[in-house]
């Protein structure tokens, strides 16, 4: 099985091999990639690794409980990721498309809410800024994202 956290570029093919099977006729792939907003050149991702792995295991188990015929896996990349490269890939394969889309969507939404992962934007002029998805103003130069 692939590691859920990696510092290397994500291989979607490897994730596909984990969950696809002759009985699963629908496969949904979600890729989250680094955007170039506001002259961002890269994002540095960090995590509370041990907790993130446990949370990923729980999220995938919940998806399996809800879509028992589906195979779902994911990989989150950490470290400095340049614009255009994937920070996360989620692959869900199921007998039919509804379950594949449903499981894939469930997992990315849960990841966004629950995974202890943080990102720091690196800008073209060399400045950096922590990303706060809540948009609340907090000391330290956070961006509303």
């Amino acid at each position, binding site marked *: 099985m692939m590691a859920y956290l990696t510092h290397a570029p994500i291989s979607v093919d490897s994730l596909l091999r984990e969950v696809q099977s002759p009985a699963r006729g629908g496969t949904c792939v979600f890729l989250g990639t680094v955007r170039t907003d506001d002259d961002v050149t890269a994002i540095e991702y960090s995590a*509370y690794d041990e*907790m993130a792995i446990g949370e990923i295991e729980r999220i995938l188990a919940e998806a399996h409980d809800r879509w028992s015929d589906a195979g779902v896996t994911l990989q989150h990349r950490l470290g400095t990721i340049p614009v255009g490269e994937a920070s*996360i890939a989620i692959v869900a394969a199921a007998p039919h498309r509804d379950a594949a889309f449903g499981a894939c969507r469930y997992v990315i939404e849960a*990841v966004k809410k629950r*995974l*202890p992962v943080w990102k720091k934007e690196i800008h073209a002029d060399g400045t950096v800024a922590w990303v706060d998805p809540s948009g609340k103003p907090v000391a330290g130069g956070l961006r509303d994202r």
Partner: protein
Amino acid sequence: MPNVTVRFFARYAELMGCESTAVRVADNAATVADVLARVRETVPGAGALPPRPLAAVNLRQVKLDARVNEGDEVALLPPLSGG
């Protein structure tokens, strides 16, 4: 008098100037909020923490009234931004 390890991540680690510390809390009914109060007393930079940061105990996210026990690992988590 539980001894717990407190870990800081991402922006909080930068604010604290360290990635972890050890604190001792006063009694056996101590909570994460008590740990947070000890951190504010003992770690320079802790004044910049928000009033109610996200927290985890032993790798599970918890509320600030969750109990802590001897040897627990408490983590203070900036707003999550994975994916």
